[in-house]
């Protein structure tokens, strides 16, 4: 599968948290040839099972990548000189500094294109002249008469950002929702790679819903699937404009493997061994409390799930110009596949045993 085309399809399909149906359908379609069964759950996550070759009952690994993206929601339909405008609020962690003059799609009775607009700062009330344009000032301008707009849009309609995926130099691509469609793509590459390779465990690939708002799909998905172990795949802050400190990976430096409270040490070690086996460069990321990813929710499902976290370096997270290197996405897919083929019937008991081993 061509990586740019895959990422373009995934990135450009709308799916703000709570409005994942279209991206869910899109992902199901792409998964179909590679898996044995596809199901959905009550909050909108999608799951695909690819059965392993081990003897039953086979252990099961959950690969979780959230499919939702940050977006906006309509709060009011307002009139000015017979034109209609929409006041909006955020869905997930939207950075207001980036909103002015962004193209959007309003998911009303039909999709309506518009642009986020404001009066110039000098025309705003004096107390609001110095900051970025906030939700008090911004409106979506769909360029339509009020009488048409009010037939098409209701308060509560979702809005997604509209930006085609574009190529930059050196296999870098830029667009919206690469957090976390880049990871969804990596899972697809993993499933594709597994077509020709033997794996003992059953694999459940999950595209989870509402991660950006409250990790909802991670909690419900891990509860329903009852996995024996899990790997969450998400993006991490890469060095770029505005972020140059040590400790953040470069683009094109390979996947990041996270260590921290949300990650089981045995899972981290197994992922690291898999990377070493295929001589793949990885970076090590750390989190000290919550990882802010699906790993946080999955880890505490039912009586607990040994969970790993793999991240793809991404610049400008939560903007419409999120940037990843396609080679990192492909590497992440290959690493997951390698990790999966190395899982055997002893894996679970081994990682428990290691918890009680004295350090050398």
């Amino acid at each position: 599968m061509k990586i740019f085309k895959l990422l373009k399809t995934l990135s450009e399909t709308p799916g703000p948290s709570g409005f994942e149906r279209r991206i869910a359908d899109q992902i199901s379609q792409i998964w179909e040839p590679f898996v044995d069964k596809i199901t959905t759950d009550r909050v909108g996550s999608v799951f695909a099972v690819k059965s392993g070759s081990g003897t039953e009952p086979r252990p099961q690994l959950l690969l979780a990548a959230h499919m939702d993206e940050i977006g906006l929601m309509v709060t009011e339909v307002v009139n000015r000189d017979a034109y209609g405008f929409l006041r909006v609020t955020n869905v997930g962690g939207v950075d207001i500094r980036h909103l002015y003059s962004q193209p959007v799609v309003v998911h009303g009775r039909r999709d309506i294109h518009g642009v986020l607009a404001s009066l110039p700062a000098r025309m705003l009330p004096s107390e609001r002249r110095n900051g970025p344009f906030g939700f008090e000032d911004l409106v979506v301008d769909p360029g339509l008469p009020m009488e048409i707009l009010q037939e098409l849009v209701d308060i509560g309609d979702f809005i997604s950002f509209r930006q085609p995926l574009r190529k930059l130099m050196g296999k870098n691509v830029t667009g919206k929702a690469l957090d976390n469609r880049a990871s969804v793509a990596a899972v697809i590459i993993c499933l594709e790679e597994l077509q020709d390779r033997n794996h003992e465990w059953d694999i459940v690939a999950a595209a989870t819903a509402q991660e950006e708002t409250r990790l909802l799909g991670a909690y419900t998905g891990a509860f329903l699937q009852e996995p024996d172990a899990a790997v969450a795949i998400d993006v991490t802050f890469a060095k770029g404009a505005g972020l140059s400190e040590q400790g953040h990976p470069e683009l094109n430096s390979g996947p990041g493997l996270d260590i921290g409270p949300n990650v089981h040490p045995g899972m981290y070690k197994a992922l690291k061994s898999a990377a070493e086996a295929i001589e793949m460069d990885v970076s090590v990321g750390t989190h000290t409390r919550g990882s802010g990813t699906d790993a946080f929710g999955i880890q505490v499902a039912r009586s607990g799930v040994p969970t790993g976290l793999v991240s793809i370096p991404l610049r400008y997270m939560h903007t419409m110009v999120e940037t990843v290197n396609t080679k990192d996405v492909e590497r992440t897919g290959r690493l997951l596949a390698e990790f999966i083929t190395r899982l055997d019937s002893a894996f679970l008991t081994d990682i428990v045993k290691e918890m009680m081993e004295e350090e050398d």
Partner: protein
Amino acid sequence: MNELLKKLTEASGVSSAEKEVRILIRDLIAEHVDEWHVDAMGNLIALKSGTGAVDLRVMIDAHMDEVGLMVTNVDSSGLLRFDTVGGIDDRTLLGKVVQVGPQKITGVIGARPIHLLKANQRTSVVKCESMRIDIGAKNKTSAMGKVNIGDLANFITEYEELGPTAIGKAFDNRAGCAALIEILRGEPYPFDIIAAFTVQEEVGLRGAQVAAYGIKPDAAFVLESTPAYDLPTDQDISPNVVLGKGPAVYVMDRVTIQDPRLVSHIMRTAEKNEIPFQIRQPGGGSTNTAVIQAVHGGVPAATIAVPGRHAHTPNMMINLEDYTNFVKLTEATLHSVTPQLINRSI
């Protein structure tokens, strides 16, 4: 789909780098004019001969340039430092996609992710000097193969029609250019029309000044896009115009009193021909009239403009009917210009 507006707005032409627009317009008008030339500053000047019925030289100006960015340096990381060209609010820049230089290298303007910001940074405007354009280069050497210091960059926006309106970049002033092209493609007027597609309006009305000097017209009309601030607000916004109420006629701005005889001629023509129009409230802003009216011993000049929302951003909006009426009103105005109109007798 208005192909003319699409082509013109999607072309790159930041002030002083108008070449792509200049060539595009030349190709669009060459068959419809008697002669054309490019002057020392890059203005494209074209003559459309009249029927000879009236002895006048009338200049029509539309500036070709748009606001944009200029690369000022390249960091060792390969990120590009830049400054704005023309009036762009720093708030406009984050999260935008641009094309840099003659090779049209795609770049984005990113920033530190919201997750890593302190509370006061989330509510502060990032200054242009601390932003960078990211073209995906791995270091300075790889960036310098594709872009150069001094390269100009423009926003990328696909022209799109949304029912009664259209969205795109640079309607200021490709809408004026489009109208002027339509006029050149139309029937001849009773007198010679000298079209001036001018450069560098956005950085101080530079091109029109020398164009007007070179043309030495008897009268001039400036075709523009004027900012419409018709968004929902309780504030008293002035000067203002509104989308959908027709082309706007300038009377007075920050610099200029438009020639009152031409202004009233435009309004009378609109009324006579039942073309909707609005008077732009007197106030700030300026147009090429400011420089044209002051060359030689003075040139009677006036501005007609199509209202455009969200000026100097990547996503402007005009009303397509306003545009049609803008062309109609300009044509009707020109057809009825007479030497008596501008004859200054005591």
